[in-house]
């Protein structure tokens, strides 16, 4: 078990390091001098040179890479060139919108998908199975931003129950902030729920064919209990894998949904930073997301062992 985890940890670490080199290199070859972009075309060469040295742009590439990495490890992501405030402040300020959004949609998606998947599996081949799987097939095909537009039309334009966009900030109270997040969260959750329900169903079907399920039923354990206690636990591994992948997707998926709802989150931050050539912000947010994907995958690996005790002994 510890060997298994040590290996996964090492792979995760290497992934983050290589990813950081890729991010740095890609943004290094980007056309356009950030200092020139900040000062405009009419800048004097002296002012440009001063700014470049202030921003550290006159240092050799390896030095800049190492100081960037070293800074991030200490929690210093550098200063944004357009917002002229520390990148870490921006990330925290925007993260408190994006993170709750991702968490709410993950909860929604799980709460919908797992019961639907189990239900469909338990009614295999019957009408209920066909209908719910047909619905998930449609759900997978719906682009989340289009679903978001439909929600806006129904709940904001037509029923006037929810705001069409914008974010009042958590300072305005939990309820108004939550109201601003609920539609984006549903829009993000629906296609994810459809995928997760399909995975849950096929994992359950696989488990339900096992001998120990028949044994449990033969012993007289009620159907419902067999389904939730015996089958679900064993079907959790593929479900967890997809959940881990989906969390990463949700964090990044906010980039489009936040644009639909004008939410001041990480996705919008990185989107605006890219168009304004504020590369240090882009680098910081992308690295943070890559690191969180790696961490989530590690957590999923640990959860495997919790769910399946055989893994603890085997490795």
């Amino acid at each position, binding site marked *: 078990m510890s060997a298994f985890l040590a290996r996964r940890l090492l792979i995760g670490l290497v992934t983050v390091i290589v990813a950081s080199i890729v991010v740095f290199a890609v943004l290094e070859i980007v056309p356009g001098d950030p200092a020139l972009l900040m000062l405009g075309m009419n800048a004097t060469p002296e002012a440009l040179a001063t700014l470049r040295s202030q921003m550290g742009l006159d240092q050799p590439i390896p030095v800049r890479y190492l100081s960037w990495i070293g800074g991030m490890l200490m929690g210093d992501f550098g200063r944004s060139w357009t917002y002229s405030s520390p990148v870490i402040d921006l990330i925290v300020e925007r993260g408190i919108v994006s993170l709750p959004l991702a968490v709410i949609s993950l909860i929604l998606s799980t709460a919908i998908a797992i019961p639907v998947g189990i239900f469909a599996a338990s009614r295999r081949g019957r009408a209920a199975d066909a209908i719910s799987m047909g619905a998930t097939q449609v759900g997978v095909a719906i682009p989340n931003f289009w679903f978001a537009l439909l929600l806006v039309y129904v709940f904001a334009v037509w029923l006037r129950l929810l705001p069409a966009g914008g974010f009042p900030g958590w300072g305005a109270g939990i309820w108004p902030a939550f109201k601003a997040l609920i539609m984006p969260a549903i829009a993000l959750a629906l296609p994810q729920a459809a995928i997760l329900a399909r995975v849950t169903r096929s994992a359950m079907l696989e488990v339900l064919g096992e001998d120990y399920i028949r044994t449990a039923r033969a012993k007289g354990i009620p159907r419902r209990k067999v389904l939730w206690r015996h089958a679900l636990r064993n079907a959790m591994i593929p479900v967890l894998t997809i959940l881990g992948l989906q969390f990463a997707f949700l964090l990044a998926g906010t980039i489009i949904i936040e644009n639909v709802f004008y939410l001041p989150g990480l996705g919008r931050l990185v989107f605006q930073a890219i168009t304004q050539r504020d590369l240090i912000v882009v680098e910081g947010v992308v690295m943070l997301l890559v690191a969180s*994907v790696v961490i989530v995958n590690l957590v999923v690996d640990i959860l495997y062992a919790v769910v399946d005790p055989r893994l603890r002994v085997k490795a």
Partner: protein
Amino acid sequence: MSIGEPVFPRTQSVVLQALSNRSFVVGCVITAIIALMALVSFYWTPYDITNLVVADKMKPPSWQHWFGTDHFGRDILTMIMIGSRNSIAVALVAVGIGMCLGVPLGCWAAARGGWIDEAVMRFNDIVFAFPALLSAVMITAIFGPGAINAIIAIGIFNVPVFARVARAGAMSIWPREYVLAARASGKGKAQITIEHILPNIAAILLVQGTIQFALGILAESGLSYVGLGAQPPMPSWGRMLFDSQTRMMVAPYQALFPGLAIVITVLGLNLLGDGLRDLLDPRLRRER
């Protein structure tokens, strides 16, 4: 007729099997209709897309304009038809990139094993660690928006997917006896891969290709929605949805039809992929 003898000759039973697979039939029909729509749009569209009729702007659906008109007076059905070319082209080329790079990579990893296999798999892990959409936005924003960069951005993330599928497939073929026989007769690994491995994994690659095609259409619509895909005046489904957003109050139909076009296309491709999987791999039938 003895017991166990097939009732139909083999070729006929394949056709019957295909026709009795509901996913396959529905998927085929939808995909064919979309493909036909894209082809027809090269020769005929209900209206001329470059002809802006200001007097006809923002018209709701009617007999003249089935899906209504947009804010420039362009016919929305015409735009959807022409937009389908863009979606199909971007997604298809992106799948092509993924296959052309990913399949050799996966086959190479499976054939050589050892550290080469390990290196290829770790490369996959690294690409997977980048949230695909975010990176696609990054690539298109840095190298400039447009259909070509959207293709590259989506294509890159298809590479590890195909590498993984090809590797897994190839790994299951290598231990087979006919491969052993080929090796014994002195064939090299490259030759065996081309003659024995590829024909045997072609089916799973085709299924994966269909699924990635659908995902590519979704990704392209997302990129053009945020303004990083095909640029105006070239119509694209995502861009049409973006344009419709500010007119939601007065013209909700403008948001309806391009969205439906995306959903129907993706649905058709996914059904086709599911059906193909059932038909090509009977062991998986009814399991999903």
